[in-house]
């Protein structure tokens, strides 16, 4: 395989390749260490972390849907202190950039988590999750108006010098507007999409399949929506975009990059194939090599009309 330069940049952070894990689908990386050489990943993105431990939602928490799944985990996590003591301590010994997904019930809680993580050298970047559809207070509520999204970003920005990525909700009328609002407050990048709010009802029991009723839809089913939003956002902001939503193979990852993503994350696909991230990385390198593309970053936005047409 010819040597393709797989490196990409997100803010100050250089990744060895553009493939990371999607928050909440990869634990803290430790659970997947049997299946994936973590040092090959672009980055590990951890599950969401809050100040206090959160116990999450009742079971059932997942349901399978056509080419997708619903989840309503509800950001169950042990709180930032236990997270630092256990997960980060373990990650410190791994050779991989760590991006921590940050959640809160209030602007202050987001800021407090960010402040605490700012002093952890193993943390390369924060991903501020203003888009989780599975909690009543906070979560997605902060991601559906420009004002709230900006406020959270500002508060977190004030607490950290680390690379700051804001994770956007697709459950909005105009995602590009929200992206511009968080960019204006100093976000170094945006990631999208979080899950689409969805629901499934059991026609046997006449009750919602998830205990909480609604949940977040992920997987290949949502890919067209995610690609469209990446396309819109990447053309609206100057900071890099991390694209996700139904990536299962290298072609899917390439599709996101062509739409304008600088990097991609693999989520639901890890569940069926624990080493999915590695096949995406290898496949993406092959994809570029076969087409004589020297740097994977050249894919970013290559489908934009203003880039002109490609000779095939």
């Amino acid at each position, binding site marked *: 395989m010819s040597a393709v330069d797989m490196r990409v940049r997100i803010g100050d952070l250089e990744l060895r390749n553009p493939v990371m894990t999607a928050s*909440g*689908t*990869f*634990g803290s990386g430790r*659970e*997947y260490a*049997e*299946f994936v050489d973590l040092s090959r990943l672009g980055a590990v993105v951890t*599950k969401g972390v809050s100040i206090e431990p959160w*116990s*999450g939602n*009742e*079971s*059932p*928490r*997942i*349901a*399978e*849907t*056509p*080419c*997708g*799944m619903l*989840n309503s*985990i509800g950001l*169950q996590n042990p709180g930032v202190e236990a997270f630092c003591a256990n997960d980060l301590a373990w990650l410190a010994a791994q050779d991989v950039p760590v991006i921590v997904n940050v959640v809160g019930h209030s602007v202050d809680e987001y800021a407090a988590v960010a402040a605490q993580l700012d002093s952890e050298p193993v943390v390369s970047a924060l991903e501020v999750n203003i888009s989780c559809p599975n909690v009543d207070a906070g979560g997605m509520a902060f991601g559906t108006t420009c004002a709230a999204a900006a406020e959270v970003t500002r508060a977190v920005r004030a607490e950290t010098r680390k690379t700051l990525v804001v994770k956007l909700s697709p459950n909005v009328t105009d995602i590009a507007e929200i992206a511009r609002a968080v960019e204006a407050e100093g976000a170094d990048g945006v990631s999208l999409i979080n899950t689409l709010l969805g629901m499934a009802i*059991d026609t*046997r*029991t*006449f*009750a919602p399949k998830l*205990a909480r009723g609604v949940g977040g839809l992920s*997987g*290949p089913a949502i890919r067209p929506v995610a690609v469209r939003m990446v396309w819109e956002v990447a053309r609206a902001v100057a900071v890099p975009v991390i694209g996700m939503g139904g990536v299962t193979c290298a072609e899917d990852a390439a599709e996101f990059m062509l739409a304008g993503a600088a990097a991609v994350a693999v989520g*639901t696909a*890890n*569940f*069926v194939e*624990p*080493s999915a991230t590695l096949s995406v990385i290898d496949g993406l390198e092959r994809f570029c090599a076969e087409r004589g593309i020297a740097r994977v970053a050249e894919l970013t936005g290559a489908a934009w009309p203003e880039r002109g047409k490609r000779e095939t």
Partner: protein
Amino acid sequence: MTCGAHRPAVEKATVAANDRMARGVGVVTLKAPATAAAIAPGQFVHLRIAEGADFILRRPFSVYRAHGGHLEILYQVVGVGTRALSEAAPGTAMDLIGPLGRGWWVPEGAAHALLVAGGLGVAPMGMLVECLAQRGVAVTLAHGAPTSERLLARELFEANCRRVELATDDGSAGACGFVTALSEEIIAADRPDVIYACGPEPMQRTVAAQATAAGVPCQVSLERLMACGIGACLSCVVSTRDGRKRACVDGPVFDAADVLWEPSEDPEVRA
């Protein structure tokens, strides 16, 4: 008996045989030497029954028996995945992750064990009875099912148990009624050293209460919907005295005394 210290791995398995046992119930034999060699009683495998867009998630199945490089799985057809499993012809490739989870354990010095199985609750108990028998633990099995046809794998249990008591909802075999009536009697009469229960959650809950009342340690094997199967996604949690635990790595077998039973968690009960 260990809790399965072997590390899980993805193994390319092949269907070696697939036989019908009763209406909607079958047993599939998978050639999977690495997993078969490593798996402990009560552990499970996460099966990729089919490829393609409609199989977004794997499906978890207990291993009934493991021998000669093969795994036997008892399954009940309840949806699209188990239907596809029932239709898988010998030779079909089907990859799995295994061995997974924490299986049954044998308390120090146990000499007499009671196994309580409701319906397909026998599925994770094949290796268990073999293992108990080998260690010289005397086993009583109480097995209930809707009808006699669904009293599965009776030969294996009869060969390995000191005593087998049966109950059916329709009285077509054994006592007419619930298996929990049998377990109540046996606990009172026999006072086993340990109880192992598997079946519908309300049944397990009743057995757990009987065990507590009698002061006998009890283990239950709980089912939850599972996405990753390896502890990462938190889709499979069980509420315990020690907080929410993941059925896929902290279970599926739990000490019944730790479980906080949530009636709403069983779709059958919720209905």
